């Protein structure tokens, strides 16, 4: 059942999102708690800073992880220009790992931010289901 091919690395997933463009650090604020008490519902907020450049807007934001079975978490597409756009969701993290957000602007430039998240596990593992 398990895939024979290992999952892409975090770096490979970012490269694929950026379509070969260079990915710069900055512009993004990735808000994830550095230590979470349960990996089942980790709040993630991505906000693009105000210093985005005149006439530019955000087209896509991608969320990626380092050690889950799949590299992608979500891909968000903005169909209208929004000043300082924000997106938030809750994610599952299988273990302690890096989480990266990448934003693609309307000029094709890409910006990323990474947070290392420590995931603690529940003390007692229940049987499956109630």
């Amino acid at each position: 059942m398990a895939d024979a091919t290992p999952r892409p690395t975090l770096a490979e997933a970012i490269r694929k999102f950026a379509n070969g463009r260079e990915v710069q650090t900055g512009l993004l604020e990735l808000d994830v708690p550095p230590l979470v008490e349960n990996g089942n519902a980790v709040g993630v907020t991505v906000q693009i800073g105000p210093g985005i450049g005149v006439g530019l807007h955000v087209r896509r934001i991608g969320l990626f992880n380092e050690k889950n079975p799949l590299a992608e978490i979500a891909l968000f597409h903005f169909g209208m220009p929004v000043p300082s756009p924000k997106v938030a969701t809750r994610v599952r993290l299988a273990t302690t790992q890096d989480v990266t957000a990448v934003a693609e602007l309307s000029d094709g430039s890409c910006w990323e931010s990474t947070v290392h998240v420590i995931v603690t596990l529940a003390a007692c593992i229940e049987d499956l289901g109630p």
Partner: protein
Amino acid sequence: MSGARVLINAPATAVAGEVIEIRTLIAHVMETGHRMGAQGEVIPRNIINRFACRYDGAEVFTADLFPAIAANPFIAFTVVATRSGTLAFEWTDDQGTIETAAHSLIVT
């Protein structure tokens, strides 16, 4: 048919040009496809894989979701209020089930 279990938090009114935040929550197990049942069988994947928001018919925000999105998905995002109209939300899962919700926005 709109499922019972959706919560939308968005302002009822806004000023033209204002950036508003829309918060959505929908009940869905988001079965990852990696879990195993009591007999060791793989529980098949079934997640909401797409979310879309239309503002007066135009798609202003969409999300492609993967199994790493937590159960009972919460998605919040910002849009610019341009004119009065309906925000229509749509969630599609792997089995093709579509849930919808709508929110009326008055822009002055």
